[in-house]
């Protein structure tokens, strides 16, 4: 080979070879350094419309699971100390079942008092009746005497007065008995009102009252929380917010595909119940403390099928609902 006829020269032989090797190394470095800008598949994907909705007109919304009765915030009719809480969160209670007991010692004392008054009034009645009987018999004795000279006129008048006074005392004692009975009844009613009972059959969702705490009747103020929250959770409903821009596109009445946050692959089909008549300002579902969004939403209520603990009250869900065909929408927006 011509290149190596003599001793290899640095400039003539080695340098070109070094240059060629350098080019190869550079090409390798460039090839290896090229960034990977390929699209990749994520490990987990968020909620996606599946089935018939995958490539059809649809409306997406976010929603919150709620009991079908909506959440009932229970208060107390009478203020007082709580002596016993009779249910636990998650209990399924039937209508009328006692939930918690407010201190009733005072009312029980009044009940005893009323019963004592009843006995007192009864005794007074008995006494008045005896006096009345004596007075009546005295009067009739005088009346039965035929000879007017046998009894003085004033004697008769006194006997008549005794009779009417003793009748009046009996009537008073009877009225006192009625009053004592009424106050006993009132004490019994209050005793009932001190036991807070379930207004409907449903699940206890939250308990924020413990024995020894003071519960306040009436207005609870804005800051305080309800003592017990309950609601009918068989079945659960879901309240889906639809952006007002999209609201006109929803095919009302069609079922929704619903999946909970974090388990987008576990989708269920929910049955349409109703649309709320009022479009309301969007309530924050993004957990931000002070979010003020001037978007209004149409709220749709759907019934969830039974799904073994997949959905819980208050949980956020993603939902897809069929939209009306695009042609209808174009016509509508053109008007």
């Amino acid at each position, binding site marked *: 080979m*011509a290149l190596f006829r003599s001793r290899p020269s640095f*400039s*003539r032989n080695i*340098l*070109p070879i*070094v*240059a*060629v*090797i*350098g*080019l190869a*190394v*550079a090409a390798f*470095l*460039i*090839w290896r*350094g*090229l*960034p*990977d*800008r*390929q*699209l*990749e598949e*994520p*490990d*987990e*994907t*968020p*909620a*996606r*419309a599946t089935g018939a909705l*995958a*490539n059809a007109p*649809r*409306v*997406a*919304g*976010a929603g919150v699971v709620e009991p079908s009765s909506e959440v009932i915030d229970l208060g107390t009719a009478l203020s007082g100390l709580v002596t016993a809480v009779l249910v636990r969160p998650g209990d399924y209670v039937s209508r009328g079942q006692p939930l918690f007991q407010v201190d009733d010692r005072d009312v029980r004392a009044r009940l005893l008092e009323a019963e004592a008054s009843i006995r007192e009034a009864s005794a007074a009645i008995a006494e008045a009746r005896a006096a009345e009987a004596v007075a009546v018999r005295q009067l009739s004795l005088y009346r039965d005497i035929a000879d007017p000279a046998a009894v003085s006129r004033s004697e008769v008048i006194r006997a008549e007065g005794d009779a009417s006074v003793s009748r009046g005392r009996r009537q008073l004692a009877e009225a006192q008995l009625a009053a004592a009975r009424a106050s006993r009844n009132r004490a019994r009613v209050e005793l009932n009102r001190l036991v807070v009972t379930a207004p409907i059959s449903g699940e206890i969702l939250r308990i924020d009252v413990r024995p020894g705490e003071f519960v306040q009747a009436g207005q609870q103020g804005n800051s305080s929380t309800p003592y017990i929250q309950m609601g009918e959770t068989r079945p659960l409903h879901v309240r889906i*917010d*639809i*952006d007002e*821009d*999209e609201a006109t596109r929803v095919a009302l009445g069609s079922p929704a595909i619903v999946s909970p*946050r*974090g388990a*987008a692959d576990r989708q269920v089909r929910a049955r349409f119940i109703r649309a709320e008549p009022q479009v309301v300002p*969007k309530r924050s*579902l*993004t*957990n*931000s*403390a002070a*979010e*003020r*969004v*001037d*978007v209004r*939403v149409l709220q749709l209520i759907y019934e969830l099928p039974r799904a073994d603990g997949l959905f819980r009250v208050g949980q956020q869900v993603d939902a897809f609902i069929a*939209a009306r065909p695009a042609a209808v929408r174009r016509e509508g927006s053109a008007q």
Partner: protein
Amino acid sequence: MTWIAIRMLTGDRQKFYGLVFGIAFSTLLITQQLTIFVNLLNRGATAVHNIATVDVWVMDPVSRTQDVIYPMPSTALDQVRSVPGVAWAVPHLRANAAVRTPDGDLEGVTVVGVDDSTLIGLPPTMIAGTRDQLLLPNSVFVDGVGRTRLFAEDAEPIGARLELNDQRAVVRGIVDVDPSFTSQVVLYTRYSNALNYVPGTRNRLSFVLARAAPGVTPEELVRRIEAQTGLKARTRTDFAQDGVNFIIENTGIPINFGITVALGFIVGIAIVGLTFSLFIRDNIKQFGALKAIGVHNGKIRMMVAAQAGLVGLIGYGLGVLMATLFISIGGATSVDFKGFYTPWQIPLLTLLGVTLIILATGWLALRRVLKTEPAAVFR
């Protein structure tokens, strides 16, 4: 005959090395400057390139780039999900905030909020920690810039506490991403956390990241989203280009690097041209002798071409090697060069430039040789 030309060329060592140095230096200058230029421009698109799982970015119509954002109301996510052809869509938040470091310093950061449940929007590779640690409460990931900027060299960043907008944030991982153009510290956290970390404005949602369903091209999806929602949608590549264009339009970088590249070219022409003509002039007698023994001009052209080719090959090879080594080593060792790479087009461009230099100087030198009388030997 070519061999004679080569011997002629390497006979004068000073001129030969001068020529090689000239070519190598211009190659290095042009390649390296163009590479840094392209990579700096690409810094404007790192937010897009760092997320490999989405192909469409949806934003408010007035948003321009990854950092020039007008946030949208949160229902925009549902609007995008409603578009047929969207396989899925996630919320994405980018906002600036100030963070208090463990040392008590204040540092401006970009807070990135990724989807709460799927963590889509988080870069794929981690330097420390695992992805699912972001699901822990008040958890944030920092990027490489944050590692150096927020913490001392010997401090352990994992588990460190930061303070953002009066909220506690715990660093639970370091992600491997290319820094942005401004090299600002990036904190990754979940969307719901990010809302707390960023001082409140009315609307918060910066982007909706969407993926096209199978069978729908990103371009088609962009068209559908824009038609149905009235929002602005860009494909991944287009949005990356937007970021690059924003830098080109708003900074002096293109002019700066353009001047340097032009200087490299001029320096190359000057050194190589001068040395080559000097070399040819010195060897004019030899060319005369060759002509005298009957060598045609064509053969002489071949000889000069061989000389120029050898100089070009050696100079270009060494120059490209140095430039790529510089970028590779720099990218591997320095945070400032992290993610830098040599696009394959640039060495080809440089090759074109070097070829131009050699052709121009060779042609100038040849003119003299071709005009040479055989009698020049005797002068």
